[in-house]
């Protein structure tokens, strides 16, 4: 291997009741693109925070270019000055500050200046955004931006520094394929300049595309370092999870269908978002909706859940038209939505995991006199923790002690607990590791088999094909194709249709 840039040796870190890291080694060479992968809660973010000086390791050392870090207590600025820029999983942006300041802040701090030059801030922010080819209003406050834009800003911030190592902890989970491609081309350029990258993602296709070497973590232990060329998808999954995952297509049990469909959507319209949306959903179906970002699929989902008022059209549940103005109306009519953007959304971070799960079903836990049954509450919480294998020693721990992917599962559990008739899942497995993805898919199928109607929205055409019996393709706000039986088509075929129609529109 080339010259070593960063070397972590024997790093261990225990939180109350959890051994997050157990004697982990990690070596990154100069100009190397290294991937760190492992299931949710395997310790990736913890290792990154130890390198960053956010957590102090119980034992072990981190050396950069041969010099040991954090010898005299942890200090984040020490890591930054050693040339390491980290994009943390939670992005660590300042919601109250402008885009420009968020991007430039690291640079200002690193140079140890005492005063602020607003012209430089604007200029370097503009330069950073130009470099990754994005246009975002520099004076907008970050709190008003979407998750994808926030990730772009966190990435730009890391790029403005003349860093020698850039660490990206799931920084690509919300951005489009195009943006990821562009980011990868930048990463390749950085590599030529001798800059190293540590990349964390649950999208294995990205990992295979970009990385040279892969370090695998499992339950806080490092279980191996492999050159990417020696691995393939199945092997990597096996190493990560200890299982082999297989998918059989979802076969819809037609007996579940009733004369009037569970949900019918008729002529739903909203200017500039979607047009003439018509479809039915039967009990027990898993209906997939896919299309590029901006195709209108998320907007339709939000309209069904009362977050986005359509201009015209009818929504019927069990054949009866329902009026859905706000999420409460949707919930009362048996519709639930797992939103696409759910980083911390709707979670009470400091409250216990169990309480967060049961919050949507408190009414059903009441016993005589309107009191809450503690026993029922705990049972319901524990039940979901087990079903979704949420990794925690006890459901009484606060949500913010969970790893990013495990927090996502809490959100999922919360909505599943309401036992809706129609469940809309917008990107159900974003940020969830491949093993748990499988588990979650099984839960979704199980729910459908018991008669729930499911609408699954996803970028990943493969995920849709694997799990849905019927598929709608959307582009530019319209349904452009319906595939009655998903076993009759392939991912490539659907991908072609989607991109072709997108290009046609763009050309027209």
């Amino acid at each position: 291997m080339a010259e070593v840039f960063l070397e972590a040796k024997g790093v261990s870190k225990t939180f109350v009741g959890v051994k997050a890291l157990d004697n982990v080694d990690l070596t990154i060479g100069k100009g190397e693109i290294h991937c760190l992968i492992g299931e949710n809660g395997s310790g990736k973010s913890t290792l990154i925070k130890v390198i960053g000086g956010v957590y102090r390791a119980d034992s072990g050392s981190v050396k950069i270019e041969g010099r040991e870090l954090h010898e005299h207590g942890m200090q984040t600025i020490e890591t930054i000055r050693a040339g390491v820029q980290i994009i943390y999983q939670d992005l660590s942006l300042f919601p109250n500050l402008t885009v420009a300041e968020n991007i430039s802040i690291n640079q200002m701090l690193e140079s140890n200046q005492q005063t602020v030059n607003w012209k430089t801030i604007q200029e370097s922010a503009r330069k950073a955004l130009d470099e990754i080819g994005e246009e975002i209003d520099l004076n907008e406050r970050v709190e008003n931006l979407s998750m994808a834009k926030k990730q772009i800003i966190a990435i730009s911030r890391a790029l403005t520094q003349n860093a020698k190592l850039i660490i990206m902890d799931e920084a690509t989970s919300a951005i489009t394929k195009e943006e990821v491609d562009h980011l990868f081309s930048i990463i390749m350029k950085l590599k030529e300049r001798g800059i190293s990258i540590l990349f964390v993602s649950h999208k294995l296709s990205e990992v295979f595309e970009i990385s040279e070497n892969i370090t695998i973590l499992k339950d806080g232990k490092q279980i191996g370092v492999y050159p990417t060329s020696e691995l393939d998808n199945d092997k990597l999954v096996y190493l990560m999870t200890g299982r082999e995952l297989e998918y059989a297509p979802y076969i819809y049990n037609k007996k579940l269908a009733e004369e009037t469909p569970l949900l019918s959507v008729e002529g739903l319209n909203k200017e500039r978002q979607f047009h003439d949306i018509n479809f039915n959903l039967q009990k027990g179906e898993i209906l997939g909706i896919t299309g590029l970002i901006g195709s209108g699929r998320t907007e339709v989902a939000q309209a069904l859940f009362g977050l986005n008022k359509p201009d015209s059209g009818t929504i019927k549940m069990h054949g009866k038209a329902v009026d859905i103005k706000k999420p409460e109306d949707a919930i009362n009519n048996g519709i639930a939505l797992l939103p696409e953007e759910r980083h911390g959304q709707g979670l009470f971070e400091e409250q216990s995991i169990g309480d967060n799960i049961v919050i949507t079903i408190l009414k059903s836990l009441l016993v005589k006199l309107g009191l809450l049954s503690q026993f029922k509450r705990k049972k319901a919480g524990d039940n979901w923790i087990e079903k979704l294998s949420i990794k925690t020693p006890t459901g009484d721990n606060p949500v913010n002690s969970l790893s990013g992917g495990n927090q996502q599962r809490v959100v999922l559990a919360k909505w599943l607990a309401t036992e809706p008739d129609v469940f809309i899942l917008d990107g159900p497995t974003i940020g969830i590791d491949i093993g748990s993805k499988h588990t979650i898919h099984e839960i979704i199928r199980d729910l459908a088999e018991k008669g729930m109607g499911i609408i699954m929205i996803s970028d990943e055409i493969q995920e849709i094909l694997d799990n849905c019996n019927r598929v709608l393709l959307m582009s530019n706000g319209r349904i452009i194709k319906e595939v009655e039986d998903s076993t009759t088509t392939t991912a490539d075929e659907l991908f072609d249709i989607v991109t072709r129609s997108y290009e046609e529109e763009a050309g027209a």
Partner: protein
Amino acid sequence: MNLKSLFKKNETYLLLIVIVFSIVITTINPVFMTWENMFDLLRSSSGTAVLAIGIFVVLLSGGIDVSCTAIAICGQYIAINVLIASGVDNIAVAFLISIGVGLALGAINAVFISIFNLPTLITTLGTSSLFHGALLEWFGTKAINVGNIPDSIKVFGKMNILTFTRPDGTQYGLSVFFLILVIIVVLTWFLLKYTMIGRGIYAIGGNREAAKRCGYNIRKIQFFTYMYAGLLAGVMGVMHLSLIRYSNPNYIVGSELSVIAAVVLGGTRISGGTGTITGTLIGVALITILEKNLVLIGLSSYWQQFFIGVIIILGVTITYAQNKINERKGLRAA
């Protein structure tokens, strides 16, 4: 700045309220809209504004300081006692002592908040009682009358930077307090906008964990914030003294809620990270006009408390509603 962004600002609406309010008062009492009355309002409210700016800075950093008023009275009462005991008759010395006390007490707040990591509300509630109790115990409870107040302080209270003569030959003018306020406003504005420590105050108010990860020295910023608030409280203590030419160790304490109300009314978010000095000043103006003029338009002074309550609730509701709207927007933007 264009018109559209002007109408997005809280300050614009607040200013409109102040103007409408002033017009209403003027129709009832034409004296209100005279230079003389304006100068008088400025003179008597500059001290409150100085205190409000200190609280504003603390709120920005994501904390709260209810001990500012206790610090102000400590600074004032210690300064006047030292001046009388030593026989020094100099306003500058009074300011120095009071500011020194303010800095020291602010530092005590900072120790609890940044080193022991205690919640800011609880800490300052505690220190407020502690500072005031210690003052009464060690410096006594006796009020100091006009006769015993050193001349330099009384002269300072009457000093004007602009003087006008009325037709009958008597004079009125713009008080030196206004100058102090202007200096503090400019200084604070500069600190917040053009220094790294000022940006740090915004940063820790917006996302403290992120500020730490970026490499901000949180402890340093918190010490700065609470000591700066202490310093301003010290300044206010002496301004108040030379305004009323009387010192009672039980004064000022108890007015913190209406000062905080003024700041929040000015659009500063209780949760930290957002707010402007302009907003704070307009907030103080509104509360002052309210306090001074309710009686004038024939309402009992109990209404004042009532209105302050209404304003706080309205202010908080508006902030809350705006956040809700923004949240929804954020959910939709894709």
